[in-house]
């Protein structure tokens, strides 16, 4: 047992995070403080929720690049509707996730029935969803977001006031993310559906022969990422307090970087929820530390690009090492 923990990807990632934060802390004293850490936990929860969705898709052997578009559209439409009519936060979450599930089902339909590669489907649907919304809406910015959205991000599960009078606490947003993470972990670990996702990611044909319901699994996977995009978009509104139709579009590469950093492989069947969350944490560590070390934001894309390349490189290298001669020939 101890050996498997030491050998796992998550363990390495954790050690890397600790080492990195010690190095950063020696340069900038404000990195390893309770305030900064809880801040990272809070702001990373949006990306965390999305990354869990993206991870599930990768686990099933696909890739979804339409989730930023799904999140943006469901966020925009939900806020637009709730701005006119009275509502509450629960309704907002429900509506956004319903829209998300709807869009996800479109993806699933195309992926399953027409056997189009997931990258091409989601490249197409991404510009369909986002483009359709942009060509319909006339007033892009929404500043009049109903007040109950903000209240959510201000609440803490528990909190305290430090010596400088700043409130530090465990935000409801982080709580939401952790709930979703645990829920997803339970689905993946203890349901037939969850095991099926691992199975079709490992080998679609074998999973089919073993009697897994492929249609059901694929519809679940793509509607689940839609659902989570909807949830994440409402979290985002509650944190940022205004809506712009391009807001979430830039998150794609960061989320994918986090997921592959967390040990998921594009060929499917590999990775864990814990790894994904650590990956998200690492990405936020890097971004936050760049700001604290006063490195200009121009460097952000370089760092993210390098993280994707290095982490996928290590994954690919490890998987070639782990396999026998017969499979090395592939690719």
């Amino acid at each position, binding site marked *: 047992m101890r050996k498997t923990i030491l050998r796992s990807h998550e363990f390495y990632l954790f050690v890397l995070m600790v080492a990195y934060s010690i190095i950063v802390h020696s340069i900038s004293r404000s990195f390893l403080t309770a305030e900064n850490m809880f801040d990272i936990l809070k702001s990373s929860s949006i990306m965390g929720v999305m990354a869990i969705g993206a991870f599930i898709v990768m686990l099933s052997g696909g*890739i979804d690049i339409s989730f930023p578009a799904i999140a943006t559209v469901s966020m925009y439409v939900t806020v637009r509707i709730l701005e006119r009519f009275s509502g509450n936060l629960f309704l907002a979450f429900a509506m956004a996730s319903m829209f998300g599930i709807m869009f996800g089902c479109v993806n699933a339909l*195309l992926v399953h029935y*027409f*056997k*189009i*590669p997931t*990258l*091409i*489907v989601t*490249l*197409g*649907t*991404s*510009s*369909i969803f*986002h*483009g*359709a919304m*942009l*060509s319909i809406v006339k007033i892009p910015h929404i500043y009049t977001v109903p007040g109950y959205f903000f209240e959510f991000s201000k609440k803490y599960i528990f909190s305290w006031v430090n010596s400088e009078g700043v409130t530090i606490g465990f935000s409801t947003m982080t709580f939401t993310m952790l709930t979703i993470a645990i829920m997803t972990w339970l689905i993946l670990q203890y349901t037939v559906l969850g095991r099926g996702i691992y199975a079709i990611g490992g080998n679609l044909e074998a999973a089919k022969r073993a009697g897994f319901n492929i249609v059901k699994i694929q519809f679940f996977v793509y509607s689940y990422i839609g659902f989570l995009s909807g949830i994440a978009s409402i979290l985002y509104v509650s944190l940022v307090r205004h809506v712009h139709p391009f807001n979430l579009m830039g998150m794609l*590469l960061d989320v*994918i*970087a986090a997921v*592959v950093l967390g040990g998921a492989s*594009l*060929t499917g069947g590999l990775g864990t929820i814990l790894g994904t969350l650590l990956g998200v944490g690492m990405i936020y560590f890097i971004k936050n530390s760049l700001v604290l070390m006063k490195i200009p934001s*121009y*460097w*952000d*894309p*370089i*760092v*993210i*690009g*390098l*993280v*994707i*390349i290095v982490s*996928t*490189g290590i994954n*690919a*290298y490890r998987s*070639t090492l782990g396999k026998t001669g017969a499979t090395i*020939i*592939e*690719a």
Partner: protein
Amino acid sequence: MRLKKLLSKKKISITYSKNMTFVVVLVVVFTVLSILRPTKFLSSTNLQQMAFQIPEFGMLALAMMVAMLSGGIDLSIISITNLAGIIAAIVLLSLSYPESLDLSMLLKGIMAEEAAVTGLALQEPTGLKMFMIILVTICVAVGIAGICGLLNGVLISIIRIPPILATLGTMKLYEGISLVITKGSPITNFPKPFLYIGSGTVSIIPVPMLIFTACVIVLSIFLNRTRLGFSIYAVGENSIAALFSGLKNRKVLIRTYLVSGLLAGVATILIISRVDSVKVGYGSSFLLQTVLVVILGGVSYLGGIGNVAGVVLGIFILRSISSGFNIIGFSNHFRNVIWGSMLVFVTIINYIVPKIADRFKYKT
């Protein structure tokens, strides 16, 4: 199997007929647009504008096509174009105006204003010297693009990162390098003779069109008549079979992405000499369209199937439609909807047609 068929006459005749359908589609699109808006679509300015826009987009599409033929994808072509363009522009400007512009100013990103103020007064070199400078610039652009492509190739074939992720990562990486170099500001005001490449004409034919035609011919000879070109098809068709028939898959893949990078480098030259400026993020909307046009042109996303003629016809179709949209006055966003739906529908049709053909016992 398919490789064998490709050699037999039957397959060639079918590919021919597939290209015939593209010709028919092109003619239909062209006639419909001409009938709908005869004064605008058939006007010489519109046709000439199309003739200037097709080459740069076409080069990018060919770059994407080479990667897709090998069964991969190259998402970094736009970033490669930007990076190579920026470095080439810096080289071009600092060689042309060696005494009046210093590099540190260029890198601080105040180039644009600086050049706008003093650029008019600057004396650009003439004659052979200018020719040499332009030659060096072209070599730099193509060389940088080649190095970027080579890096993609190494990541994909030696480290074995899946092409989507490798090129997604390098896309961000190259974009970041361009951003760090320019701080996001454009570089403009190239010497006049350089602009001739992108906006000059030989009698009525635009120069970029000539370059594009030359590249198309070279590329189709390369893909159909050389060892490496044929190996790219073989690896795309079935990489394990290719390996067992004695091909060195790794070398083939590295060279595939190298070629893809070089083509993006040529696109760079065409773009920066037409627009007279270079900026991070220029042409990012082309990415979806290149994938669309390559699939529209009959290239299989699984690799191994497709030819240059089909893709070139696809480019002409797409650009005609695009210019039609311009005339009708569709917004950019709505155009994205149409490109996205076309991408999905074309892939659906590509999936369904062989199935129906199988059912009716037609040979495909």
